[in-house]
């Protein structure tokens, strides 16, 4: 078993160096002035506004992704049309593209002087649009393989028992996709609350209007206020962690039924 021990040791050391120690350092930095200072740092009007916008936008993104991501996955798996392969490879583009490039693209397309006549730049809508762009693949890629594996016998069985198309979707397909949808949605949420590159150009970073938490943190660091930056960072971290843990708990519960 010494090989196992060695492997475990390396894995834990690596995880600690790359993830755990930096996170602990941030938590430490946020708590340097005691809980009172931490609390006042995260409840300044500007910080609160940034956090509110961040979580509001992230929740909107999660809801839209859950619905649209499932729909796109459905079309990619169940429909056959010319160019399906192409569409399928475009899905991953937001992951491959540097996020700052995405932000620039969105600014050109949906900013002042937009060639399509839509100007949402420097508004909260821009935040949501930018986040939708970078998180598109999460739900699609989580749902797609599950949908491919999904036994169409189940749907035929339900049909022969009298279930119409809508009932089959609601009672047979959706419950089987739910774990994957939640998993993709949880990842979109975690990604959304921390996104910087994609939002920084297109939103204009106007305090109390379009400034998200990550940009607020960046501003505090530039201004030399490290404890305030760390405090807001810890709030983001806590919510990300919560989303991921919640996702795992739900999945564990679902997996018990699978064979």
């Amino acid at each position, binding site marked *: 078993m010494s090989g196992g021990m060695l492997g475990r040791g390396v894995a834990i050391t690596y995880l600690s160096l790359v993830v755990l120690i930096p996170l602990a350092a941030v938590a430490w930095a946020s708590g340097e002035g005691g809980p009172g200072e931490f609390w006042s740092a995260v409840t300044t009007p500007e910080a609160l506004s940034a956090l509110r916008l961040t979580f509001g936008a992230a929740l909107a993104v999660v809801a839209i992704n859950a619905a649209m991501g499932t729909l796109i996955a459905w079309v990619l798996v169940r429909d056959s049309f010319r160019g399906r392969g192409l569409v399928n490879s475009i899905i991953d583009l937001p992951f491959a593209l540097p996020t700052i490039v995405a932000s620039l693209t969105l600014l050109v397309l949906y900013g002042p002087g937009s060639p399509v006549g839509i100007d949402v730049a420097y508004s909260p809508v821009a935040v949501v649009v930018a986040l939708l762009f970078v998180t598109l693949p999460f739900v699609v890629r989580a749902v797609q393989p599950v949908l491919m594996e999904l*036994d169409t*016998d*189940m749907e*035929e*069985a*339900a*049909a*022969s*028992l*009298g*279930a*119409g198309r809508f*009932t089959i979707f609601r*009672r*047979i397909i959706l*419950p*089987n996709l739910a774990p994957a949808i939640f998993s993709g949605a949880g990842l979109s949420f975690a990604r959304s609350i921390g996104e910087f590159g994609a939002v920084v150009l297109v939103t204009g970073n106007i305090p109390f209007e379009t400034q998200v938490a990550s940009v607020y943190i960046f501003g505090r660091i530039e201004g030399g206020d490290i404890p305030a930056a760390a405090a807001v960072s810890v709030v983001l971290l806590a919510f990300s962690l919560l989303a991921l843990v919640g996702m795992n708990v739900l999945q564990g519960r*679902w997996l*018990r*039924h*699978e*064979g």
Partner: protein
Amino acid sequence: MGITVRNVSKRFGEFVALDEVSLEIPNGSLTALLGPSGSGKSTLLRVIAGLEEPDAGEVVISGEDKTRTPPQRRGVGFVFQHYAAFKHMTVWENVAFGLEIRKRPKEQIRKRVGELLELVQLAGFAHRYPAQLSGGQRQRMALARALAIEPEVLLLDEPFGALDATVRKELRSWLRRLHEEMPVTTVLVTHDQEEAMEVANEIVVMNHARVEQVGTPEEIYESPASEFVMSFVGPVTRMRDALIRPHDVEILLDGDDSTVPAAVDGVLHLGFEVRVHLRLSGGEDLWAQIPRRTARELDLKPGDRVHVRASRSRTFA
């Protein structure tokens, strides 16, 4: 009334799955569609269920033309080879599904599901999930689920195909008993001739998208309509131009006008029967299946010279 299939054809691209198939399935019968894979038997079953739409022809169930009726409104219970269990529902919820769709009163659903679980011997498993059941239990659950809606016909697509041999045998005789208690018109698809003979009171032999023969297990075995049917429903060996069942090959120590000389090639003892491999004087091989007792009397050994006679044989054009 039963089921009437009239001139049904179905293609999948270039592949012809059903070629003008016509069939009468009597009310209350237990019919097996028997054939090799690709013979069209599963497609025919799915056409009857409405899961596949025929290119031509019609399907009449209990006197009503159901050719264009969607599966939801055919009153057909369907059981799949791989169970098609609703994985996210308990056994109870699986069986109750069709009744809930029909918006039956809660009390009635509770009673009916209870009875069905009793019938399929799963009363103690109501709150388990399909993943926690064995294959045989899952298939019994699927059967209860199909029966819950009181179907006019019950269709089973290779229902025991995914189960191991012991469970398969058990379920066959159980299905037979169930059908005697509850004689709903039942059609079973299988590629296993032994299963067809054991379970069904009528067999439809299919090959290459067509029906080869319809008859009772005895008729199919004793009077096969074609060489294909004869060789598909039981062992055959060849003697000159005729096909013969190995148990109809007689081995004699002394020859006469009706016998052909042969040499013993090998003797295999397989429990209740003994298999004797023979070579005719012309160099052709055939084999005979003889009872243990006869084998003992003949005391055959490889190299022995004997005489054989076909007590029953058939020649097909």
